[in-house]
């Protein structure tokens, strides 16, 4: 289908989704959203976005399926190992100085990053005083995150990343293999809370020492990026840390001045006092 019709339909579609289901994609970056919806159309036997909109409005069961097309990210444990190395170098020494820690993984999808951070903190002796919040808007993803069960085929990559991230032990110390899956330890899960939270519509829910939100902001337009980074700033304690994706930048954010750069290459920032 041609771009011009799609461009008319897209804002109408996201408005309809918002009014009917209260999921707000109105400030998402259009390019990726378009691509995902174009992929979804044939799966829902629709020739146009208007048709899909009609089906969504009158067949509420469809929305849960569509949500997976719109939101689920295939993440991986210790993606960008250098990021985790940077956390060990710059962030962990400061986290040690707090008696208790709250960490927020915003847009955690199926939980890979939450488990990665839990393992890192276990190795650094900090997990016992830490609570990690993993939030996302997709309930299926959150259930998978809570289960902490990943396909064994993905473990080779996760292990390789882990070793490059400055690991002290082998990843296999943290999971049990069963029926083609790797089941991560309950002792890690005790320090995690997964919950539904939208960076587009919800507000801050606790004071954090560290917020990690990687490869989520790339799906937002600048307005929504500003809202999300504003939430991170408000959630962080003074001198708290923020980590974002390797190819994301705070440079374009209205909240740029609220942070200093700790590690430019690995996108680690720290909240500073602002007048």
């Amino acid at each position, binding site marked *: 289908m041609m771009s011009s019709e*799609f461009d008319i339909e897209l804002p109408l579609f996201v408005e309809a989704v918002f009014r009917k289901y209260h999921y707000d994609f109105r400030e998402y970056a*259009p*390019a990726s959203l378009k*691509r995902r919806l174009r992929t979804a159309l044939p799966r829902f036997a629709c020739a146009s976005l208007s048709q899909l909109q009609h089906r969504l409005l009158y067949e509420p069961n469809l929305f849960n399926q569509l949500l997976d097309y719109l939101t689920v990210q295939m993440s991986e444990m210790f993606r960008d190992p250098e990021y985790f190395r940077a956390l060990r170098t710059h962030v962990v020494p400061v986290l040690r100085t707090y008696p208790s820690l709250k960490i927020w993984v915003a847009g955690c999808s199926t939980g890979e990053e939450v488990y990665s951070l839990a393992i890192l903190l276990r190795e650094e002796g900090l997990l016992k005083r830490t609570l990690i919040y993993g939030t996302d808007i997709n309930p299926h993803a959150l259930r998978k995150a809570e289960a902490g069960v990943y396909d064994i085929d993905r473990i080779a990559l996760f292990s390789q990343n882990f070793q490059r991230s400055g690991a002290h032990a082998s990843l296999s110390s943290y999971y049990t293999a069963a029926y083609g899956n790797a089941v991560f330890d309950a002792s890690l899960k005790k320090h995690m809370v997964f919950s539904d939270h939208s960076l587009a519509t919800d507000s801050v829910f606790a004071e954090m020492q560290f917020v990690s939100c990687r*490869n989520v902001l790339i799906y937002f337009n600048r307005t929504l990026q500003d809202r999300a980074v504003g939430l991170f700033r408000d959630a962080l304690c003074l001198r708290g840390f923020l980590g974002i994706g390797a*190819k994301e930048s705070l440079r374009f954010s209205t909240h740029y001045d609220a942070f200093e750069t700790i590690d430019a290459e690995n996108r680690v920032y720290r909240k500073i006092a602002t007048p």
Partner: protein
Amino acid sequence: MNRFSAQLSRIDAIVIGASAGGVEALSRILPEIPATLAAAILIVVHVPRERPSLLSGIFRAKCRMRVEEAIDKAQIMPGHIYFAPPDYHLLVDAGPQVALSVDELIQYSRPSIDVLFESAADIYGNRLLGVLLTGGNEDGAAGMAYIAACGGATIVQEPSEAIAATMPAAALKALTPTHVLRLDDIRDLLVSLAAKTAS
């Protein structure tokens, strides 16, 4: 200039896709293009995902145009060359600005040539030129067809000259491009576009 299609006279962006042999092919084209080119160039080259991107470093030293690795939300400027970062899809959003994604691999690739070409065609329409070079897979063929359907110009490298002919050959099955050219002619064409802008 007149040996090339008149369609090429009003181009705001050039998207280039390449895989196996891509760095060598680009090395024969990009360094010759004057910084006066009034179009942006966006490039996807398939590279191993776990390696830090060396592409922008390699070409920055050789090129007269400004070479950068694409950063999410950056404004796309004429006279600049943007490389897709490894393990990210590179897309164009309204602005025009860079949009990155970590969506699933397309044709076993991230970055994917199809993803760049299709999103660029949505934004630039008939003011886009798509160039598909050497490669050992079929990424880019669908994207080239989409560029053509949106009124853009398309150039496929002559497959007999390509280090890996699969990619240009797949494109020639998917569409009839504006031109099928050898690398030296593609270089001359892009240089002539810059000369036209300067005059």
